[in-house]
């Protein structure tokens, strides 16, 4: 019996061969160390994120999340749902709240679910993994697992948008959340508490359709990280991770900058700090290699 047990919603981008498969790898490693058991929601589907709105109307989109919650309530009864992807978490929790306060929508959603032989009770709290770490596990327990402190690494905690707004982590401010910094310090690395772009939007939703606009914002995020002497950026969001990491060459080409800033997940940091291998920490998933972490991981 694991110390913590959750119904897990991994999300599309974490699947094998998908853009944040490395996130899942490191999360699984991290959870092993913290004795967190993740029971995948069987046959989960896409949450349609926030960009689904053009094609999907309100009800179809809500129904998508309703299906996931219903599946969880059926197969992982009594277990809180945990998501690692900010978009997945947000869409699911929003759907849950919206359906919770609008009976008409709730009824319609269940009518649609019935087509797939499902029923939504909507009694399940939906959490982000960061919430679990901060509110359930806690910094002390995390610290107690650190075998290889990440000494000498200066890390900018980039929280981004959807892990932070509109729900965020309890007790944290939307404008200046501190939990990533605390986590970085807990792991023995050096945080940058007044990193001014920690909640700046990376333009995720527009990365494909409006690359110039989003890359302009990404540039600001990276510049600030360099200005604060960061060795790398850490983030809890797959969209942020991908955007901030993969477009650096294009940004360099466009603005004549020389960005080569590794962008990692908190779970990667923790896996390394907990003494696990580069592979377990999914450092091989970095497009811009996080050498300092590799050195520690060995």
């Amino acid at each position, binding site marked *: 019996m694991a110390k913590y047990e959750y119904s897990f919603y991994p999300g*599309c981008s974490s699947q094998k061969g998908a853009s944040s498969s490395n996130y899942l790898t490191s999360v699984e490693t991290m959870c092993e160390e913290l004795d967190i058991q993740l029971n995948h929601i069987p046959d989960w589907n896409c949450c349609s994120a926030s960009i689904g709105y053009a094609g999907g109307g309100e009800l179809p989109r809500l129904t998508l999340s309703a299906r996931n919650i219903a599946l969880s309530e059926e197969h992982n009864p009594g277990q809180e749902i945990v998501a690692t992807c900010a978009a997945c978490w947000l869409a699911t929790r929003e759907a849950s709240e919206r359906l919770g306060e609008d009976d008409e929508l709730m009824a319609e959603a269940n009518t649609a679910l019935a087509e*797939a032989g499902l029923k939504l009770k909507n009694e399940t709290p939906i959490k982000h993994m960061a919430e679990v770490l901060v509110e359930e596990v806690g910094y002390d327990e995390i610290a107690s697992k650190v075998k290889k402190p990440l000494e000498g690494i200066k890390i900018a905690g980039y929280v981004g948008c959807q892990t932070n707004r509109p729900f965020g982590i309890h007790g944290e401010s939307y404008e200046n959340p501190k939990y990533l910094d605390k986590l970085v310090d807990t792991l023995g690395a050096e945080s940058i508490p007044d990193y001014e772009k920690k909640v700046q939007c990376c333009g995720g939703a527009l990365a494909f359709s409006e690359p110039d606009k989003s890359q302009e914002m990404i540039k600001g995020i990276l510049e600030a990280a360099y200005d604060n002497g960061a060795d790398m950026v850490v983030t809890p969001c797959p969209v942020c991770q991908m955007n901030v990491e*993969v477009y650096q060459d294009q940004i360099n080409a466009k603005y004549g900058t020389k960005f080569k800033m590794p962008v990692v997940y908190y779970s990667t940091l923790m896996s390394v700090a907990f003494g696990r291998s580069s592979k377990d920490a999914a450092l091989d998933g970095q497009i811009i290699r996080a050498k300092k972490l590799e050195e520690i991981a060995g």
Partner: protein
Amino acid sequence: MSTNTAMIEKYRNNFLKEVEANVEEGDWVKMCMQCGVCSGSCPLGKHWEHPPQEIFMMIRAGKRDEVLSSDSMWMCTSCYNCIVRCPRELPITHIMHGLAHYAKRLGLAPKNQPTMKFAQLFWDNLSKKGRVNELKLGISLYFMNGFGEGIKTSLKMKDIGLGMLKAKRMSVAEAFGGHSVKDLSGFHKMLKKAQELEDARLTQHG
């Protein structure tokens, strides 16, 4: 009669009522007190022809065409800055999504609006198999503006693609079949029903 003309018929000069009845969270629009904090909080604000607070005023002023044919709502990146700062608790992000969706349904959204196209592709992609197929999404995305454009974009994105492949964060396997929900028929029936109910609500209003 097109839905659009039907709506014009029904609501005449009262665009606010039309929005309340047909746009996601549209019944919040009346609560705006024109402080402008949303407009000032938007990271892409400078790209909006009409920022949210102005759109709310335009809705009240009955500027139907200007609002629905506007490029502005499509600038929303769902960062939720406006929502958390709004002193009147308007779910502005959702209202913007709702307006964009409504404009598109009525066929009033600006043609070739890139985000609209991408968002549609994204939806088509996920509704097909229940899960997003990033490879196919990427490819269709590059070619959304025709074959020539597509090649260019593909080349431009080549290095990134290779990097992703190398990092095993992209897989050619996805091109064939790829991830999917198992109960695909149930999934499709569910979505179909949801869509029917949604349409019903609209036509009943319309």
